[in-house]
């Protein structure tokens, strides 16, 4: 089969999954356009793997529909859905070589031997497994075995590839390598990919769209930038990267829409944001990497400057992680750069913080402020 099928879209419609009384997935719906890379991101128990398995057909949903391309795949058995799946655990067949593993799906389809060999060679080149064709699982590293799993899933040329935390079982260095392989594969094959992970760095670097899940529900859906810079709930703000969640209130709305808010003991003006009125309580997300330690003389260069007292600092090599008390709130800040280090050395007691941007979580945001930020 020489024609490369374009990726197919995925639609998850109103999917709910109950295990006894536990609701693992609660009325989740989203669309994945063909050829896009979507990442389901969330902590364990958020339902992300369950959703993936439902899309694959390995799990039956309690209610809801799954569309693969134009087809309603809701009642189609897993082995007939024609999607590729990469498992979290090592799944390379132990009793077959790399070559035999990759060609397994093709042999099943009774393709001519020559075609199988050609396709297997293509896959081996795609995932850079050259030279290892005749090895067995026990003779490969974790990363290599996962690459076999990816190549094997792609060999029958499915329009969709599903990946269940493919990097979790690997150590840090192999993880980075495999991440690059996955990114490369997506670029070269242009397939629709849906990946599940709890690692926000993987999610942000690989995804076109990130679906953040919390306890079976979608907390936020958007591009990596959107999800990181404009989190819509406290959960998203604190799960995707770390943040300081700070309370404030709206003191007034000006005619041009600018909001006057009171936060951290000061009154500041912020650009317009819809849905807020005077008197509203708000929650702000201040990322440690968005906060800067500055010198007194640079104060005027920054729109939002606060004063605080240094509480604690931990040296982590490439950055200094400090805790600053600002008007009773403790803020975590990541300080990088030699200049800043010495600044703190000279003024350990009183620290000036500049904020690049104040991110106000939407007023409609649901969910409690997490106990630990």
């Amino acid at each position, binding site marked *: 089969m020489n024609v490369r099928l374009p990726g197919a879209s995925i639609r998850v419609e109103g999917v709910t999954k109950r295990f006894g009384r536990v609701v693992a997935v609660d009325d989740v719906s989203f669309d994945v356009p063909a050829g896009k890379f979507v990442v389901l991101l969330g902590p364990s128990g958020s339902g992300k793997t369950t959703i993936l398995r439902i899309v694959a057909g390995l799990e*039956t949903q309690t*209610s809801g529909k799954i569309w693969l391309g134009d087809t309603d795949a809701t009642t189609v*058995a897993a082995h007939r859905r024609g999607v590729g799946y990469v498992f979290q655990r090592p799944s390379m067949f132990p009793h077959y070589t790399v070559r035999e593993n990759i060609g397994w799906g093709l042999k099943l389809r009774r393709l001519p031997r020559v075609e199988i060999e050609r396709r297997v060679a293509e896959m081996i080149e795609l995932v850079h497994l050259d030279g290892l064709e005749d090895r067995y699982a026990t003779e490969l590293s974790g990363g290599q075995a996962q690459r076999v799993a990816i190549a094997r899933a792609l060999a029958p040329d499915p329009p969709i590839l599903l990946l269940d935390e493919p990097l979790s079982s690997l150590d840090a260095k192999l993880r980075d390598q495999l991440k690059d392989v996955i990114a490369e594969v997506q670029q070269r094959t242009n397939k629709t990919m849906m990946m599940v992970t709890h690692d926000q760095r993987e999610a942000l670097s690989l995804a076109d769209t990130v679906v953040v899940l919390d306890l079976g529900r979608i907390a936020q859906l958007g591009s990596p930038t959107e999800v990181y810079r404009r989190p819509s709930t406290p959960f998203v703000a604190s799960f995707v990267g770390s943040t300081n969640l700070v309370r404030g209130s709206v003191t007034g709305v000006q005619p041009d829409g600018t909001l006057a808010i009171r936060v951290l003991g000061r009154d500041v003006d912020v650009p317009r944001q819809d849905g807020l009125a005077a008197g509203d309580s708000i929650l702000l997300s201040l990322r440690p990497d968005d906060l800067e330690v500055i010198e007194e003389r640079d104060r005027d260069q920054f729109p939002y400057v606060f004063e605080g007292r240094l509480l604690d600092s931990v040296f982590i090599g490439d950055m200094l992680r400090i805790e600053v008390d600002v008007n009773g709130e403790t803020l975590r800040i990541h300080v990088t750069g030699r200049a800043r280090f010495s600044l703190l050395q000279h003024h350990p007691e009183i620290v000036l913080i500049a904020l690049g941007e104040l991110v106000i979580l939407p007023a409609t945001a649901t969910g409690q402020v997490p106990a630990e930020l």
Partner: protein
Amino acid sequence: MWARRITVRGIGRRLIHIYSLIVAILLVYPTIQLFIVAVSDDIVFPPRYFSLQPFFELGASFLGTIPFSVALGVSTTLVLIALCLPMAYAMERIPFRGRNVMGVAIFLPFILPGVGYMVALGAAYILLFPELIGSFIGVLIPVVIGNLVWMSRAVQGSLATSDASYEDAAVMLGASRLRAFRSITLPQIAPGIAVGSMIVFANSTTAFVAPYFLGRPDSVTATVNIFNELTLRGLDPRVAAQSLLVELVVMSLVLIGYLFSRKRFRGLII
């Protein structure tokens, strides 16, 4: 929209489930059969009467075998504990040359066909120790051998999964190895010994081949007596009652051992 569908996988799984339950019932049925015959005082099916008479007419010869059976069970268990405890300790905690050979050797009696071995032992008795024929010791000896695998696996398994550090810590604090073993390790492996003992007791109390071959009328177990009565009197509800009682007592022990620790039990068989 409900998306319940009956998958091939689902049907297959259901069938296997049901089949397994049927097999289980089939295996339990013989016990029920004994019960039915015993409480109906009749061997006809379906049962026509109800009577507990068989339980009151168990017979002196049957009751006479009970002390022997119990004595056999208890002795076998104690002897095996005494034999296997030191051996298991050596096998699990001390590396020595010949450990693998010993591990294989323990299985030897397990694979020897029972009949043939009894004939060999009988011949050896006749030749060298004729007074053992029909004696308690004469029957005890092969029964111990037959149950060696069970006790050794139970104790060894228990030792293997227990942490040796505790015993070593005691030694470092000044206890002798024996003292440390007695006060630290022994309580640790007591559950394993208990499970092994239950199995060995159940097996040896109901031993058949050894007492049948090497015993005399006054030195047989209840199970052999049951067989003799069956041969003598045919299918008698009293005999069914006898079988049922022995089975219930013995299998309850095994079941208790099983419920005690399922994982340990599985480890015994693997």
